[in-house]
């Protein structure tokens, strides 16, 4: 019996439609045979995959964690005392996808500021002006010249209500902000959940996923605004002081099975 798909272009048409929120599916497909691997690891495949799906899924988030005692200021003696915090920007996955070298998922002495186009903007701690860009998918790290410090996660939320505003255009063409929904965060969360914090919220643009910390600062709730699905994500050791949602397209790259 012959192969059911005789044309390579059809193989590509089918593989391009594998869901981007299920990164293992492309890896498994690439291990089916060499032809499929060739199709998937072609740079043109990645471009078409991204164009077909448009919205990058949330693959995880960067949890900014601190550990250790912390430094306090002594007013009388005008000095700091105590031990320094250890800062870590940890990649916490929400799909099976993992960065290539798992220990690099812990960016020590780093704090995540933002993530765009599959890349994470990190700053070194204690707060220096050194900025780095990390790509968890290709595991590349670039040191970048200092940027204006205007980037960061959205901070919002009062009384544990989440107000969702969106930009709307009226019939005359005037753009204005309109309140589209109010979400009672606590009503969504499991009854045995730790109380939540409203210090900060993370929001994945274009996906409608919010990230809300729990009061013990050990985990994060993700809230999908379209389905109201709530999941608790464990951040591991340390106390969370911020999150940066990470969206991106995982495709096995040209280095797949290169050795």
């Amino acid at each position: 019996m012959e192969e059911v798909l005789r044309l390579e272009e059809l193989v590509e048409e089918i593989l391009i439609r594998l869901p981007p929120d299920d990164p293992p599916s492309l890896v498994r497909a690439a291990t089916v045979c060499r032809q499929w691997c060739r199709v998937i690891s072609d740079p043109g495949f990645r471009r078409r995959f991204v164009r077909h799906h448009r919205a990058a899924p949330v693959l995880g988030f960067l949890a900014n964690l601190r550990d250790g005692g912390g430094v306090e200021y002594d007013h009388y003696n005008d000095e700091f005392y105590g031990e320094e915090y250890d800062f870590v920007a940890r990649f916490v996955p929400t799909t099976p996808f993992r960065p290539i070298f798992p220990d690099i998922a812990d960016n020590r002495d780093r704090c995540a500021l933002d993530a765009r186009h599959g890349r994470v903007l990190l700053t070194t701690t204690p707060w220096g002006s050194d900025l780095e860009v990390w790509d968890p998918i290709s595991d590349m790290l670039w040191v970048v010249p200092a940027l204006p410090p205007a980037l960061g996660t959205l901070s919002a939320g009062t009384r544990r209500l989440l107000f969702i505003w969106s930009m709307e255009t009226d019939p005359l063409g005037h753009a204005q902000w309109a309140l589209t929904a109010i979400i009672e965060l606590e009503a969504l969360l499991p009854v045995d959940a730790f109380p939540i914090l409203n210090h900060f919220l993370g929001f994945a643009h274009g996906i409608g996923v919010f990230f809300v910390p729990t009061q013990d600062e050990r985990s994060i709730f993700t809230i999908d605004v379209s389905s109201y699905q709530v999941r608790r994500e464990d951040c591991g050791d340390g106390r969370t002081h911020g999150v940066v949602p990470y969206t991106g397209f995982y495709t096995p790259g040209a280095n797949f099975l290169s050795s």
Partner: protein
Amino acid sequence: MEVDKGKGEAEETRKVAEADRDTVTLKSSDGKLFEVSKEAAARLSTVLAGMIAGGSIDDNGTDLKQIGSEALENVVDYCNKHANSIPSAALISSSISFNTAPFKEPEEWERKFVDRLSHDALFDLVEAANFLGMERLLDVTCHKISEMMKGKSPDQIREVFNIKNDYTKEELEEIRQELAWAFYDD
């Protein structure tokens, strides 16, 4: 359907000739004839649209030597169902998309249409849609096939697609180690 306005071939005795201006006759590789709405064929297939515009449609059955009768029947069935379904926003936008619109989920009737097909029929239909330049049908059939791969191991996928494993054991082991997260539930 419009009645014959006189352009039809007089020598044709088949009843279908009456609708000559509204339909085209397609001939499968095994010689079977199928009638399809000219409007739907031209709208859904770039290849048929080109043939109709270029006058290369044969009234006695345009030869489609690459397409078997079962697949062609499904193509025609899809065109007819499409012609009868209310044009949705998805289809209107796909016609003006210039390939920039994101993929639109199959509609209910399209899903049912591909769900009832056997694997073989589905794979034949993908090839027919590709050959005829039927973008939407290609979209719907490829989407269905990619869904069939969901949760399957590489071995199971090879079975469905009848593909021989041409990797060495060592190569597969290397990938499984390097990207263990992709094989978490095997």
